[in-house]
């Protein structure tokens, strides 16, 4: 099997190199009739996908056949591993995940090359850029991190098993989503660089790029939040985001990608920000690769230690070369990117996008700076420092709140110029609503729930939470007012009900109203984040019948039990949950011991409601006295985060749907009084 896989990878490399070089020659000599050569390059790119797919299928088949002669399968699988995780072996380790990266890149290239009729010349340039990136990853999997490397010595009877933390259903979908996001940013970059090299006339390339970016952004968003949900459900520390370098690596391209999705509108509608957009597309691609460099090189210490290796040098070279290539063509052709219009007023949609981009890029810089600062500190002062949650919370939260304010203001501003009066008129009632909600949260009694009776003067985190909820209300009202005002106009013209009118309004401009739905999703997510200021936790030894009280819940330990299965043995705590003196649930947090890897992991039990999550971790036995220890967390509003993500994804999908054509108004024909009767079948 290993030979088939290795051959497929070598074949893919040869095809990739051909696709790149032949495509390049065809573009250079396009005036000399090299079209057929270009066509062979395109077809080689298509077949590259088939070759990489074959390699990936072979690796998965090797996992299912327990072929431990392949070192990668030995290190990441074992006989009793269940089928979904054997499939997930493909992206569970360094070599496999790089192969998976190559596969996704080849798949994107496959789609791109099949759709080349849209604009053959632009697609030919993009195809060559994509082939260049593909060659880099194929070089990696062939020569630096080959997943088909054979195990030295005798073949063991069983494998070392998959990392226990990865044996969770979300690990079957989280990495593919994240990688689809990371890899997908290569496509907008390929189009942008292609358009820059060929001095593409017009803005069509930006339309194509925007759609690809939106799809990719959707995948990355999904991947990031699946990762957060996995961390919350598996790691057992009660949180979903730890500002770990690997998490930061996924956030950085997301931030610049989000900035691009906003600023691209300036280029489409007003022919402005062309240089900026070009750099944003490049930065997003570059940061995705930088993220991979961070997670793979081991240069920065991270809890994701399973992904460290010595391939950092390859990535460093690739980052340097891609930057040099982009800079060269930018300097050569930047005159082509001159803006077409002037800005008429500071109070306009254009300037709101400028400040929005400033804040997104600043957030990205903060994350990048914080991620690298331990290394910089080591170089400058000889010792590392930790840059963890407290740093990011203090620096990033105020910026994020400003961004939220702009999210509320932006839709109310018109292109070109907005009068102060108009802004006041549109902003007044949403602002009143937001202030009213904030006051309501302050004056209500705390007994109503975790986020009520909020006293912002007691702690800065309460103040931030109050601000966040207030601004979220403001955004919600402005989004609602946009739907309402548009719906009212349609209702007036068509006589339809308000809801039907708003649906029709959304169909007519899916991008705009899909975007508003995304904004609303973000609001819901941020309300979920705001709940973190009120988290509580409690740790206690709990014997049979012992009680623990947290918030309004009382937990009583009923018993402990254990269970064996071929892959792991598990211990369960069984606890009855009471609220207001009435039993409402029975929770069973679990602790597992995996036989193959000889590692332990916790499986928290989470009782999730709209108001709060009761999160229980069975931490094991006290080593001194043998008593079981349980830790309970009460995390308000966490469910809102996951609900918000669904709304964001729904909005993104809606924004990708083509607009419904606006109805054509035709003057009503005059009635013909003497018309002949129409018979059936006419």
């Amino acid at each position, binding site marked *: 099997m290993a030979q088939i896989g290795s051959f497929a990878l070598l074949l893919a490399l040869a095809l990739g190199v051909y696709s790149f070089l032949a495509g390049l020659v065809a573009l250079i000599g396009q005036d000399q009739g090299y079209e057929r050569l270009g066509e062979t390059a395109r077809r080689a790119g298509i077949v590259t996908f088939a070759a990489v797919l074959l390699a990936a299928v072979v690796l998965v088949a090797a996992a299912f056949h327990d072929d431990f002669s392949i070192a990668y399968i030995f290190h990441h699988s074992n006989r009793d591993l269940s089928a979904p995780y054997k499939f997930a072996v493909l992206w569970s380790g360094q070599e496999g995940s790089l192969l998976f990266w190559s596969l996704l890149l080849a798949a994107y290239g496959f789609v791109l090359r099949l759709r080349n009729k849209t604009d053959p010349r632009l697609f030919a340039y993009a195809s060559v850029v994509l082939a260049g990136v593909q060659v880099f990853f194929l070089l990696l999997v062939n020569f630096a991190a080959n997943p088909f490397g054979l195990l030295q010595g005798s073949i063991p009877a069983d494998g070392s098993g998959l990392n226990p933390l990865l044996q969770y259903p979300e690990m079957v979908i989280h990495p593919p989503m994240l990688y689809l996001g990371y890899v997908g940013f290569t496509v907008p970059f390929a189009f942008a660089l292609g358009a820059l090299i060929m001095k593409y006339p017009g803005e069509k390339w930006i339309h194509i790029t925007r759609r690809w970016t939106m799809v990719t952004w959707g995948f990355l968003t999904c991947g990031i939040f699946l990762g957060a949900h996995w961390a919350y459900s598996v790691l057992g*520390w*009660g*949180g979903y985001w*730890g500002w*770990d370098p690997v998490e930061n690596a996924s956030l950085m391209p997301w931030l610049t990608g989000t900035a691009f999705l906003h600023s691209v509108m300036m280029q489409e509608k007003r022919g*402005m920000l062309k240089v900026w957009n070009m750099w944003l597309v490049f930065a997003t691609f570059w940061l995705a690769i930088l993220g991979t460099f961070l997670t793979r090189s081991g240069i920065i*210490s*991270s*809890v994701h230690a399973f992904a460290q290796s010595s391939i950092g040098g390859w990535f460093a070279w690739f980052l340097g070369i891609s930057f040099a290539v982009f800079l060269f063509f930018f300097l050569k052709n930047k005159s082509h990117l001159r*803006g*077409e219009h*002037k*800005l*008429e*007023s*500071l109070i306009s949609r254009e*300037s709101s996008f*400028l*400040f929005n981009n*400033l804040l997104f*890029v*600043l957030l990205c*810089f*903060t994350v990048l*700076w*914080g991620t690298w*600062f331990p290394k910089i*500190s080591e170089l400058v*002062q000889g*010792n*590392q*420092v*930790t*840059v*963890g*949650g*407290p*740093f990011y919370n203090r*620096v990033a939260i*105020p*910026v994020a709140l400003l961004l939220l304010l702009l999210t509320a203001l932006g839709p109310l501003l*018109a292109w070109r110029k907005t009068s*102060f009066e108009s802004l006041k008129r549109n902003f007044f009632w949403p602002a009143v609503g937001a202030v009213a909600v904030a006051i309501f949260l302050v004056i209500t009694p705390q007994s109503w729930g975790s986020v009520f009776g909020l006293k*912002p*003067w*007691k*702690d*800065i985190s309460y*103040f931030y939470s109050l601000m966040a909820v207030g601004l979220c209300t403001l955004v919600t009202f402005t989004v609602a007012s946009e739907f309402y005002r*548009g719906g009212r*106009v*349609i209702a007036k013209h068509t006589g339809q009900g308000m809801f039907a009118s708003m649906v029709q*309004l959304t169909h007519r*401009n899916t991008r705009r109203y899909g975007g508003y739905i995304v904004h609303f999703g973000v609001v819901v997510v941020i309300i979920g984040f705001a709940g973190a200021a009120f988290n509580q*936790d409690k740790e206690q030894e709990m014997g049979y019948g012992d009680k623990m009280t947290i918030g309004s819940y009382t937990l009583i330990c009923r018993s402990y039990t254990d269970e064996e299965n071929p892959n792991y043995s598990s211990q369960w705590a069984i606890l009855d949950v009471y609220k207001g003196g009435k039993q409402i649930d029975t929770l069973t947090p679990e602790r597992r011991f995996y036989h193959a890897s000889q590692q332990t992991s*916790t499986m928290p039990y989470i009782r999730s409601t709209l108001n709060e999550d009761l999160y229980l*971790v069975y*931490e094991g036995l006290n*080593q001194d006295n043998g008593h079981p*220890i349980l830790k309970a967390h009460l995390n308000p509003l966490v469910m809102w985060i996951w609900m918000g993500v669904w709304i964001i994804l729904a909005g993104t999908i809606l924004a990708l749907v083509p607009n419904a054509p606006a109805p054509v108004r035709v003057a009503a024909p005059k009635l013909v009084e003497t018309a002949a009767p129409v018979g059936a079948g006419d």
Partner: protein
Amino acid sequence: MTNPKATIRRALHCILLLAAVFAFLGAGDPAARFGEIGHRMMCICSCKEILLECNHVGCPDSDGMRNELMAAVSRGDSDSLVEQSFVQKYGPTVLAAPTTTGFNRTAWIMPFAALILGFGLVVRVVRSWKNRPAPALADGLRPIRGAELAQFRDQARKETEL
């Protein structure tokens, strides 16, 4: 009639004042200090978790560190004294965020410096765009300004409201 610029300036002053008031608020309650300082420190057991969030049963470090912290808070040691004693014992990586002294100060300054720089750049870009000459019109066309322009804009807005 109110001057819009003065209103904006006044609103900005209020926001700055509020931000300053809340930024200097801290939890003075001794009972909350343990939780607050504990969340500013890392467990040193290589789990890379905040001290009070380390959930390893049998962790060789976190229990001892928590006890030390509790003792220091009960003694009434100041926050900086507690942090200094932890840094001396466990090294600078025990703090979850860089200090505000020496080179570490740059960690805090850089994002805000970038914000100010970026803000300045945006303002400059906006000004240069505002001062950019309008594209030349073809022969026979005349620029539309003032009330006529406002009327056309209003008409365009009404017709493209959807």
